């Protein structure tokens, strides 16, 4: 009888193992769950950081909320997982999160080797250097022999190595995994320079004890197109995430904001009618409700509103639109037609 019990137990285990083999379509899993699990930064002010009351806020957080608004009609159906730079891709690969909205740079090796798909860029950035004004350094070319604080496993690390090699300068890295620890070490003086994406530097400086004492050097040494990412294997989910980001940009191009979107429903402009679902078709082809874009704009806002709310000139980061302005205003934000 003991033998029978053992055999039954083993058979049961085999059956449970059987269900793990097939990873399943991401979109179906998300719809069944009823919320999106988004991987975010957790330590960069302006992009993905909880505020003093514990509410998540930031550009990437709003992107995740836009995806939830598109799929569920409710921007609050998101759960956030803070991830370090070293954990972020493994978390996405393994299925721990559904989408990575964590200021990740799109590169060839990441797209091809990691089994990820990056979607539309939600922030065009570049790498810069943050130094204390006390050092009296005016340009990045004067940093020979400096000690530089950098996060491990990022394009930042590689770009700094390339920049210093190209300019025949030497440098010493101080490499700490946690963004908050790294900032603390920099402000305590362990290293001369903090290097990261310029927007992250602005965010780090904004919450420092003495923001006016630090300056971002003029050299931007790399291109960092920051985009959300999903896993290979589910093209429909990828399209939804992609066009959720593009919907916000397209809305700004069409002049639709969260304030006037209800009046825009009555617009005679065919492009706006197709975009907001007054003329049906877009939602069905994506597998979403026809009001998916309307929900995004109503609950989250268009790209301009999201930018100004999180990192714009009136926030403590004080960033100009720059490359992130619409293509009609000299920037790179350009949406394909929504038809």
């Amino acid at each position, binding site marked *: 009888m003991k*033998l029978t019990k053992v055999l039954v137990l*083993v058979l049961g285990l085999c059956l449970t*193992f059987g269900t*793990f*083999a097939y*990873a399943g379509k991401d979109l179906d899993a998300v719809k069944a769950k009823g919320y999106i699990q988004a991987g975010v930064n957790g330590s960069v002010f302006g992009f993905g950081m909880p505020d003093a009351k514990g509410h998540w806020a930031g550009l990437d957080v709003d992107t995740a909320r836009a995806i939830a608004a598109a799929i569920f009609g409710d921007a609050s159906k998101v759960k956030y997982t803070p991830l370090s*730079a*070293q954990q972020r*891709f*493994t978390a996405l*690969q393994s299925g721990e999160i559904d989408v990575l909205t964590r200021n990740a740079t799109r590169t060839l*090796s*990441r797209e*091809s*080797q*990691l*089994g990820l798909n990056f979607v539309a860029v939600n922030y065009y950035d570049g790498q810069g250097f943050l130094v204390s004004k006390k*050092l009296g350094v005016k340009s990045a070319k004067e*940093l*020979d*022999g*400096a*000690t530089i604080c950098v996060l*491990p*496993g*990022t394009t930042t*690390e*590689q770009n*700094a*190595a*390339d920049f210093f*090699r190209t300019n025949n300068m030497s*440098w*010493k*890295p*101080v*490499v*700490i*995994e*946690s963004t908050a*620890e790294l900032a603390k*070490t920099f402000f*305590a*003086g*362990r290293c*001369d320079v903090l290097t990261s994406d310029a927007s992250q530097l602005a965010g780090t400086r904004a919450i420092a004890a003495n923001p006016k004492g630090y300056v971002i050097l003029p050299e931007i040494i790399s291109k960092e197109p920051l985009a959300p990412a999903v*896993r*290979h*294997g589910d093209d429909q989910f990828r399209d939804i995430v992609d066009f959720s980001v593009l919907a916000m940009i397209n809305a700004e191009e069409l002049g639709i904001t969260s304030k006037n979107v209800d009046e825009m429903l009555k617009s005679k402009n065919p492009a706006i009618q197709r975009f907001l679902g007054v003329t049906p078709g877009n939602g069905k082809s994506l597998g979403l409700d026809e009001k998916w874009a309307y929900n995004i704009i109503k609950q989250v806002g268009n790209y301009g509103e999201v930018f100004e709310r999180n990192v714009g000139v009136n926030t403590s980061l004080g960033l100009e639109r720059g490359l992130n302005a619409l293509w009609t205003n000299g920037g790179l934000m350009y949406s394909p037609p929504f038809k």
Partner: protein
Amino acid sequence: MKPKDNSTPIKPAEAAVPFWRDAGKRAIFIQIIALFMVGGVSYYLFSNTQANLARQSIATGFGFFGKEASFEIGESLIRYSASDSYARALLVGVLNTLQVAFIGIILTTILGSIVGVARLSTNWLLSKVAGAFIEVMQNIPVLLQLFFWYAIFYESFPPPRQALTPVNGIVLCNRGFIFAIPEAHSAYPAMGLMFLAVLIGGWFMNRWGHRRQELTGQAFPAGRITIAMIIILPLLIWALYGAPTAMNMPELRGFNFQGGLTLSPEFMALLLGLVLYTSAFVAEIVRAGIQSINRGQIEAAKAIGLRSGQVLQLVIFPQALRVIIPPLTSQMLNLTKNSSLAVAIGYADFVAVANTTINQTGQAIEGVAMIMVVYLVFSLSTSLFMNWYNKHMALVER
């Protein structure tokens, strides 16, 4: 009456025991089934992983070893730059871990023994201070201790431009402690060789001295003579080579000090934190070992006229070591594994370098497997050596 003959087996009247009631045969059958199941599950897991990785087009295999690493490492014992391969970067990580583990184990054993013996001292203050040290260090989580020492090193010391120089040639700042070292000269390898020669000669002299003592009863001060020779003979070599005095001095050039030997705050914090934490445990082990000795041994040793120090050295420690060595091995392995916490304070140990490699190549499975294999090799070598030493010290009993 003829006694019953019990030597011939009774022929069973019924048929042979059926297969499923024969305990021996059943055991073999179940073991074969279990083996097949384990093999089946392993094959299933392996092929499932492979299929999932291929479906998501994630790269597999160790081909990335030859690729360019393109990241810098803060400190390394061998020459390394961002244009070297991943394999070389991982080697730097291994050497850094070995450096911390090796020095850490030696310092922990010494400090732990001292604190353990102090805890048992008849001096009230000494034993209470040792006791307080043990309690505090054992009970605070090691990661917090590492953060604490790291913060001490980079917060309490001034930046390079206002560095402290208590002695000409020693620089203390928040970038590390930099010491002037002698300029490279052919005298120094020769001195090193002479040092080794004196150590080996001293060991042989010690053995000869012991044998002489057994035969004639006269003690031979082998220890004192060896110490004297270690100081005098290398100095003689130094003088013979022309007494070179050129020093490689640390100089502030630009942002940091160049030249001399640098001990970074990361290395010092890791070493200090790990040594203090582990030595508290070693102190308790040493105390347990010493207390395991029969009181009669100490009384007998004192009765034949040995001083306290000699009692400890000649009677107690040789016996206590048999109790101390196995748990001490565990603590050495703990220190080696705890050194992987270096990633939290910025020291470039093997786990930190491997993590960066995983992140850049995306191959998490190969990376973690590598980390496991490397630490397994470290741990197995340490315990192999310590088990050999344990057998060497074992009491020869029946």
